[in-house]
């Protein structure tokens, strides 16, 4: 483009000295822009993928008599309550067991401590049952699953809450 214009002007003006234009252009801003775009696209492509947590639910068996019951000595029950409260006890929660319900929270010193306690860790058969109350939040469920992952607890199940568990929480809160 520049050259063509140059020729035209020199033809008309006669003795006008042809100005020598350098064909080189400063590419620095262009490079800057390109690098910026690269950075943008690189970051957006890698960070846009959402994280997930895989969860396997126990298969619902139509015949309850085929299921092997968990022994009370190998069971720990965690109840997720409202307002981010957590309760746990060892055993299956049958009234004759008279389990000692302990209230705790989701912090590192709370439920995590209970999950790494020797009673859980030294027993490879220990099964943790998570029973969220209807009033608990979804975050509570994710948090507790996360704690189980952090503490490397392999055997756990998400179980529906029973009336006896609700009663246990009620008496605990009533105290």
């Amino acid at each position, binding site marked *: 483009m520049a050259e063509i214009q140059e020729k035209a002007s020199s033809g008309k003006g006669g003795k006008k000295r042809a100005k020598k234009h350098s064909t080189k252009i400063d590419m*620095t801003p262009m490079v800057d822009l390109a690098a910026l775009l*690269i950075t943008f696209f690189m970051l957006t492509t890698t960070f846009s*993928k959402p994280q*997930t*947590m*895989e969860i396997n*639910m126990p298969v619902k068996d139509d015949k309850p008599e085929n299921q092997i019951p968990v022994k009370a000595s190998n069971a720990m029950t965690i109840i997720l309550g409202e307002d981010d409260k957590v309760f746990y006890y060892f055993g299956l929660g049958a009234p004759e067991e008279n389990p000692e319900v302990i209230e705790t929270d989701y912090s590192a010193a709370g439920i995590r401590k209970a999950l790494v306690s020797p009673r859980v860790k030294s027993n490879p058969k220990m099964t943790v049952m998570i029973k969220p109350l209807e009033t608990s*939040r979804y975050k509570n469920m994710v948090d507790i699953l*996360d704690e189980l*992952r952090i503490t490397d607890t392999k055997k756990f199940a998400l179980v529906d809450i029973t009336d006896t568990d609700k009663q246990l929480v009620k008496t605990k809160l009533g105290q």
Partner: protein
Amino acid sequence: MPRVKVKRNNPSLDMTPMVDLFFLLVTFFMLTATAREEEVVIVDTPSSVSEIKLPDANVITLTVDKNDRVFFGVDGQQTKKALLDKMASKYGVSFDEKESKTFSLLSNFGVPVNQLKSYLAMDGTERKNVNQPGIPLDSTNNQLRDWILETRKLNQKVVIAIKGDVDVSYSTVQKVIETLQDQKVNRFNLVTDMEARPKSL
């Protein structure tokens, strides 16, 4: 004494190959990047230490927002078109070509089947502002189950991801999980945010 000619080096270097390379990379990233899908609702997902990434394709996303509404979303335009046909015949509604096209471009939606026709008839901005009631999932009218079932019939590789809000009550999530378990889907994903794993227990 002869004059020593100092050779003057031009400090500017030829950037053309660099620019070529950069634009090649820009083009590559632009083409590979998929446009972020528009969300109908803003959902604040809880965080976890899990580092598994959600797959790119063949994902059903069940979004549960904090008002206990459930939204259904699946990827793949062809899948969505076929899915709409199946659902239309199941529920005795019909959709024309234009509505089917609109549906195939939706990332997710939360309207019952009988309201879907009027929802698809809206234009873009109107659709964005309309208050979607969520997909019904009561035991008497569980449309979510049919949506999932039909999608799974069409695409066997599909993975189900639940994207729940932090504050959604557990009973709603439980209903969604029960809907999945009724179909013998016992393995699914929960979409979470990143969180650093604590160093010591």
